[in-house]
C-alpha cells in the first residue's frame, strides 16, 4: 500500500521534483503510518476473535466436557450399588427450571480449572459448603455466568418461590428460592455462612446458595440466590423426576 502511494505521488509530480532525499523521507513516513494502521486493524481483529472465543468457543468446549463427565457419573451410578459416594467425579446434578439450562453437574471445589469444564462447584473455601444430605448447613455453589458453559447465565431469571432441585444417586433434594441478592461485593463471603444472615434467615436450616458474577460479561460484583430445603424424594427405579421438573 505504501509503495502505491509513493508511486502515485511521484507520478503526480513529473519534472524536477524536490530533493530526492526529501521524497524518500516522505515515502518512509507514509510506509510507517501504513504499517501502524495495519497493526491497529490486526489488533482490532484479534480482540474481536477473543470475544468470539470467550462467549462462544469456551461454551462449545465446556458443554462437550460437561456432557462427557455427566454421562460418566450417570454410568457410574447405574453400575455401582449402594456404597460410599464418589465425590471426585461429581456428587450430583443441579436442576433449576427457571434457568432453562437442563442439568448442571456439581463437583467439588470452585477452582477455575474445575468450573471451566461447564460444571458448578461447591465451595471448599473460604467457607466450607455443607452437603445436601447433612442435617444442617448451607450447600453453596458457584458456576460461570458467561463462557465455559455459562451454567448460571440466567440466574437473574430465578425468583422467589422458584424450585431448585438437586439430584443425587438416591435422592431428589427439592429447594425453594426464598431470597436473592442481585449485587454484592466479591469479598462478601458471609453469603456462604451456614446460616446466611443477609438472606433474612436466623436459624440453622438446610439452605442452598447459588453464586455467580454480575453484571453479565464482567466480574465486578456477585449475584446470590438462596433457597431452603422443602422436601426430599427417594429416587425410584425409573428416576422419575419430582413434579417441579415435569
Amino acid at each position, binding site marked *: 500500500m505504501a509503495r502505491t502511494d509513493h508511486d502515485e505521488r511521484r507520478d503526480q509530480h513529473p519534472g524536477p521534483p524536490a530533493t530526492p532525499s526529501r521524497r524518500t523521507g516522505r515515502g518512509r513516513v507514509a510506509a510507517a503510518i501504513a504499517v501502524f494502521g495495519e497493526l491497529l486493524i490486526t489488533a482490532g481483529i484479534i480482540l474481536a476473535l*477473543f470475544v468470539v472465543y470467550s462467549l462462544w468457543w469456551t461454551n462449545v468446549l465446556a458443554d462437550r466436557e460437561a456432557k462427557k463427565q455427566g454421562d460418566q457419573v450417570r454410568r457410574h451410578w447405574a453400575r455401582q450399588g449402594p456404597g460410599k459416594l464418589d465425590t471426585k467425579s461429581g456428587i450430583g446434578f443441579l436442576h433449576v427450571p427457571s434457568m432453562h439450562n437442563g442439568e448442571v453437574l456439581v463437583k467439588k471445589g*470452585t477452582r477455575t480449572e474445575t468450573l471451566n469444564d461447564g460444571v458448578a462447584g461447591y465451595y471448599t473455601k473460604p467457607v466450607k459448603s455443607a452437603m445436601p444430605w447433612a442435617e444442617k448447613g448451607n450447600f453453596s455453589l458457584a458456576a460461570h455466568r458467561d463462557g465455559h458453559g455459562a451454567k448460571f447465565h440466567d440466574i437473574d431469571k430465578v425468583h422467589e418461590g422458584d424450585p431448585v432441585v438437586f439430584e443425587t444417586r438416591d435422592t431428589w433434594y427439592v429447594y425453594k428460592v426464598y431470597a436473592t441478592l442481585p449485587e454484592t461485593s*466479591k469479598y462478601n463471603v458471609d453469603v456462604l455462612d451456614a446460616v446466611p444472615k443477609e438472606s433474612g434467615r436466623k436459624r440453622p436450616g438446610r439452605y442452598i446458595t447459588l453464586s455467580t458474577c454480575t453484571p453479565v460479561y464482567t466480574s465486578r460484583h456477585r449475584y446470590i440466590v438462596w433457597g431452603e430445603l422443602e422436601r426430599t424424594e427417594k429416587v425410584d427405579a425409573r428416576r422419575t423426576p419430582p413434579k417441579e421438573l415435569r
Partner: protein
Amino acid sequence: MYGWIWRHLPGNAWMRALISLVLVLAIVFVLFQYVFPWAEPLLPFNDVTVDQGMGGPR
C-alpha cells in the same frame, strides 16, 4: 505489511489467495488453542466466586 506479505507469496493471485487463507486459519487456530486460553485467566472477566481478596481462591 500485508501488501509486503502478498508480494512475497509465490504463485499467481489464486495461489496467493489460497496460501493467505491457510495462513489466516493457522493463526486463528494458534490463537484459540494456545494464546487465548493463556490470556484469559489474566483478564478480570470470569471470576465467579466470592472470596477474601488476594489471599483467597480465584
